[in-house]
């Protein structure tokens, strides 16, 4: 009996010793990591003023301490870059180019590792000018989805309007680009992208046409009104294109669109399209739409009836007067009118803000 007890005792001791060793190793590792982090914080604090002085520097050649700075310096520059514009941004981009950061990233665009290609695209998007647009456009067809998305975002950030067309084309390419990311990139390109968006609205594939219409509406692009009206009137337009065109016309807010939108509200087959037309009419607020919107209160779709009621409420005294008359009627139109008036009574300002 004594031998097994002794063995068990030794085993317990060994287990305790191993546990203590593991705990000690973990503690040591944690301490080392903490020290490394503290060291990096110190180095960042030391290097940050050097980065800031770059913004005062109009000299094209960087100071020797900038050239000799460690790689952490580049990280600090890249962290700061998205917050700045104008000559500050130019100065930081110049330093990154001088230190070879941009050339390295440009080389990495062709790397075999997807994460490296994606990282390089992101870096060039936020740090470079237009000189890498062609290489980034090629990445829109990358086999890796994350790389394609990184290249899409990067092209928006370069501000190079030459990227607009390939971005729109990428929506229907195989493999395609995510619509939301393309939309954000095109918005990042700003108003210089408007001509490309107008082209996509008239000649683009349906997906590009719908996105272009949506973005033109966000820009409030008056010049796009005729093309948006044509999209709405074109029987071959897809439902998403019609919905986006109606939404854009509502955002632009020209009463010249009232006739086309009331026509859509009356004749479109899909409830989603009729609803978009009603929403747009509410945004425009033209009293000429009151008759069509009142008729829309008897629409077969409850969504369309609700949108018509909201639009009438948004149009002003004439629309609200019509709602009050209808609210005493039985049936779906009366229900929709009463619901709209209830919302107005509860939060009149909020409703006007949302609908107007």
């Amino acid at each position, binding site marked *: 009996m004594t031998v097994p007890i002794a063995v068990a005792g030794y085993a317990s001791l060994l287990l305790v010793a191993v546990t203590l060793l593991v705990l000690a190793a973990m503690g040591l590792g944690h301490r080392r990591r903490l020290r490394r982090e503290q060291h990096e914080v110190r180095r960042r604090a030391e290097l940050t003023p050097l980065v*800031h002085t770059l913004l005062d520097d109009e000299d094209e050649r960087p100071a020797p301490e900038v050239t000799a700075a460690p790689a952490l310096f580049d990280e600090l520059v890249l962290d700061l870059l998205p*917050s*700045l*514009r104008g000559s500050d941004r130019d100065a930081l981009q110049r330093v990154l180019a001088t230190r070879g950061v941009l050339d390295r990233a440009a080389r990495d665009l062709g790397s075999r590792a997807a994460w490296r290609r994606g990282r390089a695209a992101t870096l060039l998007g936020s740090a470079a000018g237009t000189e890498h647009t062609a290489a980034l456009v090629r990445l829109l067809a990358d086999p890796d989805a994350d790389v394609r998305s990184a290249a899409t975002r990067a092209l928006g950030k370069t501000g190079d309007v030459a990227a607009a067309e390939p971005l729109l084309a990428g929506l229907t390419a195989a493999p395609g680009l995510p619509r939301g990311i393309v939309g954000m990139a095109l918005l990042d390109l700003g108003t210089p992208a408007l001509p490309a968006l107008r082209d996509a609205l008239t000649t683009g594939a349906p997906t590009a046409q719908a996105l272009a219409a949506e973005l033109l509406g966000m820009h409030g692009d008056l010049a796009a009104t005729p093309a948006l009206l044509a999209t709405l009137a074109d029987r071959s337009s897809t439902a998403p294109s019609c919905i986006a065109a109606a939404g854009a016309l509502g955002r632009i807010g020209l009463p010249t669109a009232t006739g086309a939108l009331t026509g859509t509200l009356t004749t479109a087959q899909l409830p989603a399209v009729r609803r978009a037309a009603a929403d747009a009419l509410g945004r425009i607020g033209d009293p000429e739409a009151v008759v069509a919107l009142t008729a829309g209160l008897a629409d077969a779709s409850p969504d369309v009836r609700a949108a018509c009621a909201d639009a009438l409420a948004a149009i002003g005294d004439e629309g609200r007067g019509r709602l009050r008359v209808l609210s005493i009627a039985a049936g779906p139109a009366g229900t929709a009118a009463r619901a709209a008036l209830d919302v107005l009574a509860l939060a009149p300002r909020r409703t006007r803000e949302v609908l107007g």
Partner: protein
Amino acid sequence: MTHVLVVDDDPIITDLVAFRLTRLGLTVSRESDGEAGLAAARQLRPDLVVLDWMMPRMNGLEVCRALRADPDADLARTPVLLLTAKAQEPDLERGFAAGATDFVAKPFSTRELVSRVTAALPPGSVPA
């Protein structure tokens, strides 16, 4: 000495703004959220506040309104410069309605910021 309070939850921004304004010869204090920024403004009585809009705990507009409503008339008149990514037309309306003196849109130019800070302060506040 002219005193500027910088309130922004992004330390990259507060570091840079503090660096530029200090080089201009101004004394700079920093806070990283709206609530602490308001408390610091009440305690330090700065000559100007550079304020971010979107911040934790209390946003820039709330800070701005609280400053304008302060019973201390001097503090209520403190110029407030909104340094913010929210700089669309409706944002400008809301900012000015809340009592902002001026706006600088992010991404920003430090030269523009320095010019606007100088313009918002009384003449002679910034050392030549």
